[in-house]
């Protein structure tokens, strides 16, 4: 019965999606600016390959081949119309159908595309570029007056920043520099070299340079579900990067959900990030980000340890001190926020191995809270850990198979906290490089717990489209 329903739903979704997609045309901005196929920068969109990472790191420029004059050069060469169109891109992402089964209920639900994003991005000068996401969410979940609502929202998306190569500035201060295709690098040929330092400021998510980059996920996070003003079901996200603690608050009003994506998978927060690559081996990164009522400072490093044949391997480490980023519950009433803001210290390691058509990456991240009021010490577990491991395998030119395991050893209020383990598998079919139909199944590997929004489900199947850039 289940499979018959599922197949019917899947086929219908495919049909609806195909019709819907055919009515519009994707506009991959960078592909058009450089007349490149998507796969040059992506293992399969949206995940970046090594060339794409380098492209991103150099401020959305072909490495060593920045267009002289930047935007002015584009206007001269291509004219204003093409320059404008080439600067825009559109992304529609969403599970069109969802099938959820629990021991108690079977639910079939229609969900329209959950995210429509317009990207405006391009280099302005050889050393300066910008990237802005304008997002429309027909079913955005918002929290107002103590309740969760679903409503349409538009505005700035996850990221909106500029990236500036400070190589010239460092050179002006006396460091040796090299001109590499119109971009300035610090160092000398054959000796020490440094890409950047690049300043990325605005609304940023700085994890692109991490071994586990979360802002271009092949397995997209599921949506938060709310009902009657309360959380019905928490989304399935990479748990390593989740907030991990039960019972905390973002501010004096809104709860901090255990699956909220914070620091190194933030949904975009005001901040600034400096990163530089040294001798093509070590990537260093420091920065700060706003988070709730406080702010994060962080430092990260990636070591590209192996590049031999078709095998590459890198490891990363991050340390993050979040000052006053969450609020503890009121010691007298755990359902409401107290006066005390807490610090969170986060340590993480990640690794990425790429070999032939296989791409394996994972992150293990430990969190610890500081500043907890004495009255709460016995009630709150101050440590939490998350593990996320993903494997992508390009099984066919048009088919990317992915599997992700998420493990959450949660912290927070001891009488509320639950650990979680989820296994997701996904097949993504790319009839074109920028259009993917996917089918995904996530399985809750822990026992069903009806009152827990983390575990009140057994299985979730999604069929959807990721019309990508």
């Amino acid at each position, binding site marked *: 019965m289940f499979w018959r329903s599922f197949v019917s739903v899947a086929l219908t979704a495919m049909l609806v999606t195909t019709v819907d997609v055919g009515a519009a*045309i*994707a*506009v*991959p901005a960078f*592909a*058009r600016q*450089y*007349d*490149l*196929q*998507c*796969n*040059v920068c992506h*293992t399969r969109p949206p995940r970046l*390959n*090594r*060339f794409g990472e*380098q492209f991103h790191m150099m401020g959305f420029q*072909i*490495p*060593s*081949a920045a*267009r*002289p004059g930047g935007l002015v050069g584009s206007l001269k060469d291509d004219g204003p119309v093409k320059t404008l169109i*080439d600067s825009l891109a559109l992304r529609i992402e969403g599970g069109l159908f969802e099938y959820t089964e629990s021991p108690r209920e079977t639910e079939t639900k229609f969900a329209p595309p959950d995210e429509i994003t317009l990207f405006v991005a391009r280099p302005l*000068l*050889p050393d300066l570029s910008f990237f802005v996401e304008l997002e429309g969410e027909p079913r955005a979940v918002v929290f107002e007056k103590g309740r969760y609502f679903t409503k349409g929202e538009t505005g700035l998306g996850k990221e909106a920043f*500029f990236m*500036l190569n400070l190589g*010239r500035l460092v050179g*002006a201060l006396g460091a*040796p520099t*090299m*001109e*590499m*295709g*119109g971009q*300035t690098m610090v160092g*000398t*040929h*054959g000796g020490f*070299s440094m890409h950047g330092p690049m300043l990325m400021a605005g609304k940023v998510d700085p994890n692109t340079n991490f071994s586990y980059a979360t802002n271009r996920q092949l397995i997209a996070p599921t949506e938060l579900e709310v009902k009657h003003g309360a959380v019905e079901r928490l989304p399935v996200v990479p748990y390593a990067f989740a907030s991990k603690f039960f019972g905390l608050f973002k501010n004096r009003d809104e709860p901090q959900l255990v699956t909220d994506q914070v620091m190194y998978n933030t949904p975009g927060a005001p901040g600034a990030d400096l990163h530089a690559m040294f001798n*093509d081996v070590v990537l260093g990164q420091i920065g700060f980000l706003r988070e709730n009522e406080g702010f994060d400072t962080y430092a990260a490093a990636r070591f590209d340890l192996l*590049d*031999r*044949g*078709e*095998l590459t391997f890198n490891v990363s480490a991050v340390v993050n001190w979040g000052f006053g980023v969450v609020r503890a519950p009121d010691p007298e009433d755990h359902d409401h926020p107290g006066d005390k803001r807490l610090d969170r210290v986060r340590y993480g390691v990640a690794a990425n191995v*790429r070999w*032939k*058509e296989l*791409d394996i990456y994972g992150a293990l991240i430990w969190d610890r809270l500081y500043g907890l009021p004495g009255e709460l010490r016995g009630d709150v577990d101050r440590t939490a850990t998350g593990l996320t491991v993903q494997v992508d395998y*390009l099984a*066919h*030119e048009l088919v990317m198979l992915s599997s992700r395991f998420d493990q959450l050893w949660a912290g927070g209020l001891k009488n509320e906290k639950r650990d979680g383990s989820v296994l997701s598998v996904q097949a993504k079919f790319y*009839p*074109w*490089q*920028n*259009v993917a139909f996917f089918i995904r199944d996530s399985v809750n590997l822990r026992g069903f717990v009806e009152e827990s929004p983390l575990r009140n489900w057994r299985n979730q199947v999604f069929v959807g489209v990721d019309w990508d850039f």
Partner: protein
Amino acid sequence: MRAKLVTSLAVALLVLLAGLWLVHPPASRANGERDEEKGGHAHVPAPLEYADVHVPLSVWTDPAMIALGKEIYATRCAVCHGDAGDGKGPAGLALPLKPPDFRNKDGVAEMRDNYWFWRVSEGGQVEPFKGKGSAMPPWKGQLAVEERWAVMAYQHTFSGHQGPHVTWEHPESVAVGRDIYAMACVMCHGVEGKGDGSVGPMLSRRRAPQPRDFTSAEFKFRSTPSGHLPTTADLLRTVTEGVRSAGGPMTIGLRGHRIMPSFGHMPKEQRLEVIEYVKSLNRGFWERPGIKTVAVPAPPPFTPERLARGRQLYADAECSACHGERGRGDGPSAPTLKDNRNLPIAAADLTKPERFKNGGRPEDVYRTLMTGLAGTPMPSYADSLEPDQAWDLVFYVLSLSRGGRTAQAGTR
């Protein structure tokens, strides 16, 4: 308050950018400033007409050649460069651009053999040396090629280096190119240039095209006969144009759907630097006895008769077996085509010349016909087609797209 902060930040950013632009506008030369400081002997890449002149390896250590070079050096060079090669010859002292010191190991190591040969041949009559006041005479009219090699071999002895003066002995001579390669090329072509970078298998899974193995003898895009290594100009064309391909995203605005980016915005000097590094990965560039290239004659006027002859040639040469009757790459053999790595390879869709890997201009198509694409089922027709016939076929191939307008436009 917030508006004021944002405005202040925006103004500060604009001022910073304007300052950066004024203080240090983009340079276009690789490593130039450092060489300027060394006395103006910028080791810029040799121009294309000299780029393929690599001195045979044996010359550098051949006693007879060194003796010949010593003799020539004493009579023609020592007056400026000094008997000891220290750049302090009596006539050199008064020159605005001082002769280099050949005893300087670092300076000599940075000179590639083709650069050295270019300098001996053209002297100071070419830029950037002419503008700096170089008084060195050109020796190409007075010394035979072997004599110029001989004098280089003798000059080389001043540096104390014993072996042949080649890039793999002196990695500093390709340092600029290696840095660019590490930044832009290594992800596909691999650390050793074997075409085994981590991007390749995902780029086009178990299908051609795959990134080029620079260490092999097979290069697709050449003006040289089948089985030969390409010229530097061929490599420059590929680096500049990138590689176009079939497939790609469903979108508008893409022209060539490149699978390898165009590095046309990279300054030419830097493109040549990276090419010199790529050549250093394959000793075949030093071991080939001579270079033959397939000349591309000027296209004859387009006529309907030529088009008809081209159609007949298309049929006679059985082009349709792979490319199909209408040139759409759907011939009966197309599904079974494989390259020399046994990877499936698509026959080119001749109705889309903007996606031809080796270029879609008439001269590009001519060159492809006459050289073939090494490692692919596309053969060379150099032995079976006369130039005139090849042009007929070019016209017909280009007529398959856009109702033949491409063919006619190409002759203008």
